[in-house]
Structure formats: structure tokens, C-alpha cells
């Protein structure tokens, strides 16, 4: 099992960037607990298509969200080469399925841009900002509150 722990740095502006399809996305490093290779999940009945299933994270049941499906892109067919980014937001722990983790980047304020009005794309709702990178890539920063399935008794969205 591939597994890689990320040093937690106090610098607020660090992000973890990863690829889904041919697009670059990123999330705050603060919410990331660990990154691990994909392992087969247990399918949850009646779950929306973006919930791949649940995995065992050292004794805790963690749901895995297929980010591609969540963002309205074609559903991922996971292989052991895919990665699961374990994030913890509001005491809820969730795995995010992505193609590959590319980098940990320090972001400087000037490169954060608002999302231009691109029309009613389903992905648009999940993006808070765009970050332009020196090498010309554009990182789409994800809104974790919208990505995560609802927890605590409520029906998962």
C-alpha cells in the first residue's frame, strides 16, 4: 500500500495540488491528513454516483468521494495508481479520489484570482478561486464544504 505522510506546516497559504483528468485542482493543506493509494472500497447501497464507497482507515469507516464525478466530470474508474487524499473538515473525515497528487505549493496572495463568470457549469459551484501558477498552470481551489457529503444523521447529498 502506497502511503505518504505530509509534514504539517503552519503556513496558511500552502495547498496540495492534484490532477483530475487533465485539470489541476488544489485544497488547503490544513485539512489534509494523509495521502494513500487507492484500495478497493465497499459499495454503499443507495449512494449517489460520486460516492465510491467506504474504506477502513485504521479502524474508522471513511467514505471516498470520486472528485471527478462530484465535479460533473466522467466517473473515475479507479486503479491502484489513483490516490485517496484523506481530509478532515468539521470533525468529518472523508477520502477524496484523485488521479495523482502533483505538488505542495506555497501560494502568494497576488496569484489568487476570482472565478470568472463562465456560465452554468456544474463544476463552477465547487470552485472558490483560481490560482495561477508560475509555470502557466491554473489551479482550481475546491470548496470543501460543498464537496463533502452531509454527515450526522442527514441524508448524504
Amino acid at each position, binding site marked *: 500500500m502506497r502511503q505518504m505522510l505530509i509534514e504539517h506546516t503552519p503556513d496558511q497559504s500552502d495547498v496540495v495540488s492534484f490532477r483530475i483528468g487533465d485539470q489541476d485542482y488544489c485544497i488547503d493543506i490544513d485539512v489534509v491528513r494523509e495521502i494513500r493509494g487507492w484500495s478497493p472500497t465497499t*459499495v454503499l*447501497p443507495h449512494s449517489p454516483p460520486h460516492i465510491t464507497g467506504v474504506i477502513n482507515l485504521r479502524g*474508522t469507516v471513511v467514505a471516498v468521494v470520486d472528485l471527478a464525478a462530484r465535479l460533473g466530470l466522467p466517473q473515475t474508474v479507479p486503479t491502484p495508481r489513483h490516490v485517496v487524499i484523506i481530509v478532515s473538515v468539521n470533525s468529518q473525515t472523508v477520502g477524496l479520489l484523485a488521479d495523482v497528487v502533483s505538488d505542495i505549493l506555497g501560494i502568494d496572495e497576488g496569484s489568487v484570482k476570482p472565478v470568472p463568470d463562465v456560465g452554468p457549469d456544474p463544476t463552477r459551484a465547487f470552485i472558490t478561486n483560481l490560482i495561477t501558477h508560475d509555470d502557466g498552470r491554473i489551479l482550481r481551489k475546491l470548496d470543501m464544504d460543498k464537496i463533502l457529503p452531509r454527515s*450526522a*444523521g442527514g441524508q*448524504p447529498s
Partner: protein
Amino acid sequence: MPQRDDLRAAFFEECEDLLAQMGDGLALMSDAADTPELETLHSVFRAVHSIKGGAGAFGLNGLVDFAHAFETVLDLMRSGRLSIGSTGMPTLLRAYDVLSDLVAAARDGVTEPSSMAAILVELDILADGGGADEEDIEFVPVPLDLSLPFASPVEPEPAPLGYMIAFAPSAALYLAGHEPAALLRALVRLGSARVIPDTDEVSPLAAFDPGSTALRWQLELSTCASRDEVDAILDTVSHLADVMIAPLVTHAAGMEEEASTQSRPSLPDQVPSEPGPIASLAMSNSDPVPVMEARVKGMDAAPASPIRGQPEATPVQMPVASTIRVNLDRVDRLINQIGELVIMEAMLSQAITNAQIEDGGDIANGLEGIKNLAASIQESVMSIRAQPLKPVFQRMQRITREAADATGKSVRLQTIGEGNEVDKTVIERLVDPLTHMIRNSVDHGIETAERRRSVGKPAEGLITLSAAHRSGRVIIDITDDGAGIDRARVRQIAEERGLVAPGAHLAPSDIDNLLFMPGFSSKEEVSALSGRGVGLDVVRREIQALGGRVTIQSVPGQGTTFTIALPLTLAVLEGMLIDVGGETMVLPLSSIVETMRPASVQVQYLGRAARMVASRGALIPIIDLAESFGFDPVGPLEQAILIIVEYDADRCVALAVNQIHDQRQVVIKSLEDNYGDVPGISAATILGDGRIALIIDPEEIVQSAAAESLALPHVANG
């Protein structure tokens, strides 16, 4: 002040223990109200006394006052001056309830219970000699003046008697820096006294040894102070001097009176005393014996005056198993980690098998050892969460009393097997259903005293609450010796409410189970007690939520028994591992009635898709589990396995699954923490290979199936 808050919290925790101790003692006393065990009385008294002491320190005056009145009655009882008999017992029990309420009220900062004043009056009547005079009730509502800490409400005007005190200091007393004159002065301040120095042993000056002690004193103390106050002064030096305190009956009597002694058994001879029969009794009897206090009037006190065995001012704690309080989170974390260990062990053994090591004997042995160790650690950790049922059962004593009072019936609750241990969460969630069932038994089960006498039963009804471990579950029985279920009446009500078709063929047990139907209430007039629109159906739902089952047996004229079967823990479940559409899932074993291959039985079709199977004379609807979870259907039933599960009282459904793998204990993991509720799934677990399996909730499966197809046939009983 946080420190004071800590102390306060510690006090209330201690109060809980003391109240529990009192509950035990009172239960013992009510079994033998006429001749209560002295040790029991002492333990109850000490508990009240400790609560009073602690409450005083925190300025909880209401609690202090009440505890004092309570203590007074208990003190009279243990000194043999009051025998309350069985008539006074209910008052003591109610006083215990009020004391519990007062402690709770003081802790939560709410107002004191309204019943306090009434019980205070009752205690007062008891203290006045058993409340024999009915007229006395006329003036008892006058509130007791309890402001004087040790003024006995028993005797408003205690006769100004006193004590004869013999005080013989040892050399150690002087070495410790005590001054006899100061002690004597302190004693004299309690009243008036005549101090007689005893110089008999003082040697002539020529032979004077400054290291030895020769001076002794006798003190005739006339005082209305209690023995406690005298003791308090002398307690500090009681181990450094020979002290004898005797009640002063008349001034003339003096030391000839039988003395009560506070000294150690190694009482040196030099102290002038009358050993006599009483002293020898003191040697032979190690148990504490109550003492007749100096307040006792007249001559009759003297001949019977037993020995004071124990200083009253320092309550002695009963030996209690040593315990520590641990935050529950830590225990749960430990349980999780042990679960991990078990899984890691399984993964390791898988890896070793895969590696195909040549001579793996040692490795296999080592693995086996780890496996056994992990299992035993898991068991030990689970037992940390387990707690005895006793506190719940004790609460039921009170529920019974209150229910009996409310209905005007006389009912006694007997508890058996309260030492059996169950998971803490199970215990907490058991209180409500048990309360309801006890009330139900008192209200509906036990007949009125007249009715009971007319059928030759004792006037007092008996409810037995018993617990026992049976094959990994705890079985709780609630048995009453009442009239049993009036089946004709139950049937009539069920028909009136449209719960069953008129004239339907129902076995007696079917009729009994109607009581569990939602909306059923058999009492003709809604009683204040259990007629709250909440029926036994709620009880059943609560028990089922705990993974348990409730059943009912009733014999007309002899009583009714409710049986609750509960899992010992909510953390582990005995489950059957099944294959549903390629996914491994767990079905709780407790719900499974039987399994069968449909090839060997007749499957009946109803309409287009509904299928049923005949089993033991009943037609049971079939649900395709895979289909209901949105997976690929099982396919032709001939290749499937049917598992018949009970999802409701005597209502079954057959679940079609692909395969049965195994049966084992699984550790329950919540899905809701990180995901949310999944229809038809109660929780998840982690299998030996580290993968997650979902635990099926059969009741939800049936409900969602019923919601999807209203055509689902309802054929519970042919």
C-alpha cells in the same frame, strides 16, 4: 473558583455512591423491617451522615436539614430506642427518594422537591415514636427547628445530665505537647463540672520520676451537651491517654455505673473501672454495638447499657472495591485500537500465507499467540465498559414505590442478579423501557389489595426483576404475580381499534403480542400513570434499537412475565456474513430465525413480482436483498439462499441472498460519523482482510420494501 468546583463535583460523585450504598441498606432493611441488621442500619446512617457533612461544607442548607432529620430517625433506630417496624419503612424509603432528589437538586441548582416538607413531617412523627398517635398529625406541620446542629428533635428538653469522665494521661501525651489543664478547661466549658485530681499514684518527692505520669483526674460534668461534643474534645488525645466516659445518671452514681468505653482493647488495668460483664462483652464482640446515650432517662437505661463500639463522629467507610474514574473517550479509543490490532493480525497472517514461507512453524505459532492475546485483550477492554445492572435496578425500586403510591396498591419489587454486567450504553438506554414496564406491571398487572385477598393472594403484590447471562446475551425478566393478561378484553380492544379483523383466529400468544401494537392501551380509563399514549410498542422499539428483543408470557390469574434479551455490548455483534450481489454484508444473528434453500420449498407467486415462501404453516414474503440495495438482483431463486428474519414481534420476512459465508463476532463501526445514514444499513464493520462490510438492518429493509411496493402481501399468520 475552579478548585472548589472540583471538590463540589467530587462531593456529588461521592453522594451517588453513598446513595447507592443507602439503597442497598434500605432494601435489606425492608426485607426484615422488624429486626433490621445493626450493621445495615449503621451503613445507612453513615451514608446519610456523610452526605450531611459534605453538604454542610458546601452550604447546602436544605440538604443538611433534611439529612439531619433523616439521620435522627436512623440514630434512634440503631440505638434501639425506635423500632419502626414495617409501617415506618415506606417513610424511610420515601425519605431516601427525597434525599436523592435533594442531592440532584443541589447539584443541578434547581429548586428542592416539593415533597420534602411532607416527608420531613413524616420523619418527625417517626422520631416521636412511630407515629402511634393519630392526633399528633394535627400539629406536626409546624416546621422543625433544625438550626441547632445537634439538638435532638426527639427530646425537646433534654434533661441536664452529664458524664463522669476518667482521664489518665500517658507520658506520650505530655511528650506530644498536650496540656491536660487545657483539655479539662474545654470540658468544663460545656457545662458545670467538679474536677477531682487523683494523686494516689504520685510518689513522694524523694522517689519522684519526672518521666513517669502519675496524675489522673475525674471529672463530674453536668451538661446538656451531646456525647459527640465531649468526644470531640477528647478525640485528639484518645490515643495518648486512657479516657473513660460514663453517663452521669445521678450525681451520686458516679463511677459505679456501668461505663461505656472508648478506649482501645489494650486498656491498661490501672484505670479504675468496673470490668464486669459489660467489659467482657466488649472483648468478645467485635461488631459495633449501639450505645445508649446519656439522654436516656431513668434507671432502665443503666442495666442494659451496651458498649459503644465506634465513635459516631467519624463515619467508617464500608470496604468498597477500589475503582478509578476514567473518561469514556479513552476507553473507546482503546477499544478501537484493539480492534485495529485484531485486523492487523489477520492481515499479517494473510501476508505470511501469501509469502509461502517454507518452514513457517515458528511464525504460525507466534501468530497464533498474538491472535489469542488480541482476543483476550479485546475481551478485557470490553469488560471495562461493562457495568453492573444494579444502579438501574435500584432506580426501579423507586419507580415501583411511586407507581404503587399513585395507584394506591401495595407492591414490592424484588431484584435478582443485579450484579450482572452489561455495556454502559445499554444500561443507560435500558432505564426508560424498564421504567415503563415496571409502571405497566404495577398499573395493569398487579390487582388491588381487595381483589388479591379475594383470590387468596397476599395483599402485597410482588414484581420480580431478574437478570441473568445466557449464551452471550443478558436476559432481563419482569414478572408480576398479578392477574395476567385479560385476553378477551385485549382482543376486544384490538378489534375496536381495528388492529385485528373481528373473529380472526388468534393464538393466546398472538393476543398477548397485540399489547406491543402501536396505539394499543388496554386500561379502560386513562390512568395518570401509564396512560400517556405511550404504549408497549415504544418499549419494544427502544429494546430493538439496542439490538434486543422483548417477549411476553402470561398465565391468567398468576401473572405476566416480560422477557428482554439484550446484547452484552453495543460494540460487538454476533453476525452472519453473507454475500449480497458480490458484496460481503453482515446480518445480525439475533434477528435470524432460520435459513433455507428455496429449491427444497415451494415458492409461491403473487401477481407479477411478489413472491412468498411457505414455512411452518405461514406464508412469508420474500425480499431480494441485492435488489433492495440497488445491486443486481440475486437472479433465479433456486440459486439463492433464503434467510428468514424476524423484524417485528412474530412477523417474518425471507431475505434472498447469494451465499452464506460465515458466522462471527464483528466490531460495530458507525457510518454516521463520517458519512450519514444509509437506508437498510445500521452500521459497518471491518473484516479480517481490512475491508469494510455493512451491517444490515432487517427492519429498515422491510419498511423500504413495503414503501416501494404497497402490494407487498401482509401475511403474518396464515
